């Protein structure tokens, strides 16, 4: 099993690498489209901002490699900003197109709640979900998807309003929370993604 983690160049992928190692999975950071094409599993992590994140993917040609994987239903996991980059666009960077894998746009939390949302929140899952089950997840976000794309199964949390905590369809999984920082529950989710895909 070979896991490629898209190198965002931001230097905060240590917890993800450790989480994979703890599951006995060999993971490597990469900026090379051919590695993304060849890997069994690809994780698009993300911390940072939507505009620079998309610019980085485009200049390295990683955007096309990721889109090809999704089109072929090969295992792809987007985490936090990585999930948001899969959408069509984001209020964080108006005019910058996303990867367009998800029929959704990224919107900010309203000003009346703590932003960024930092901490643990309850995730309620759809009974049809194959991967995401109910539990407590760690979030670090100011933005979220506006809807569960048609044809996908969603999981939800509430931060004043209900928001999309995760989406899944087959081998495609997108988490607004950080499974690598969500304790045993998050580790079990990663394990299910590795096992079932």
């Amino acid at each position, binding site marked *: 099993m070979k896991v490629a983690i898209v190198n965002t160049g*931001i*230097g*905060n992928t*240590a*917890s993800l690498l*450790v*989480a994979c190692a*703890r599951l006995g999975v060999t993971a490597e950071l990469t900026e090379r489209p051919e590695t993304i094409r060849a890997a069994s599993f690809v994780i698009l992590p993300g*911390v*940072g*901002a939507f505009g620079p994140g998309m610019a980085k993917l485009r200049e390295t040609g990683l955007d096309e490699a990721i889109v090809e994987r999704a089109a072929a239903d090969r295992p792809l996991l987007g985490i936090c*900003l990585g999930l948001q980059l899969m959408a069509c666009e984001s209020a964080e960077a108006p005019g910058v197109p996303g990867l367009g894998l998800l029929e959704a746009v990224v919107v900010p939390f309203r*000003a009346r*709640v*703590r*932003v*960024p*949302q*930092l*901490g*643990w*929140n*309850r995730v309620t899952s759809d009974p049809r979900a194959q991967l995401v089950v109910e539990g*407590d997840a*760690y*979030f*670090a*976000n*100011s933005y979220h998807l506006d809807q569960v794309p048609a044809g996908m199964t969603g999981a939800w949390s*509430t*931060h004043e309003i209900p928001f999309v905590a995760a989406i899944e369809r087959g081998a495609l999984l997108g988490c607004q929370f*950080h499974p*690598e*920082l*969500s*304790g*045993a529950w*998050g*580790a079990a989710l990663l394990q299910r993604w590795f096992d079932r895909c």
Partner: protein
Amino acid sequence: MLMRRVIPCLDTRDGRVVKGVRFRELRDAGAPVELAARYADQGADEVVLLDVSATPEGRGNALATVRAVRRVLSIPLTVGGGVRNVDDAERLLSAGADKVGVNSAAVERPELLTELAERFGRQCVTLAVDALGGGSDWEVVTRSGTTRTGRRVLDWIRAGCAHGAGEILLTSIDRDGTRAGYDLELIAAVADGVAVPVVASGGGATVAHLTAALSAGADAVLAASMFHEGEFTVADVKRELAHAGVAVRR
């Protein structure tokens, strides 16, 4: 609903956890990796690691400590101490921190917060503020409480958020290590004054203290001695908080 966080704090110097009173009289309290793993097992929501080393050698050890602690944690890790520029922050994040705490350097050059937020996102940027005083008037102090700045705490925190801080780690110097409870007026003033989450620190020694800080508006409570000395496990504390009606992760 977003739950309130209970955060054990590891003040480390030269690779060991230490604890003092009002940032002085530091005593050895154990090995950071063992304590971090124990607290995570007990249900800690996050761990904060503050490096209080005074020397460059100590700082080098701190990176090794971050790597070692990261390996045993599957919950968030915030690391602070001596972060003066984007490169310092990047080294800590690469070593395994999820958030970086900045204090003195941000007071001296607030643009640092902007640079960190632009590079890593504001959810990575924790502004640590040490508040001196009581009543309703607090002054920002820096360099482990040794330097008075003349700046009002609320003014500085609002400015810090405008510059890019995504979280406030608020420590009352007057309460730190005293076991007298958190400065509730300070917490309420800051929690009302900003949109970002506020972590209360300084003086927490009982579950009643933690409950009071959360009721005053803190999003999270940080404590050190009460856990290091084995009086309470994190699990004990969270069970009692839940019993008192506080939403915590169980």
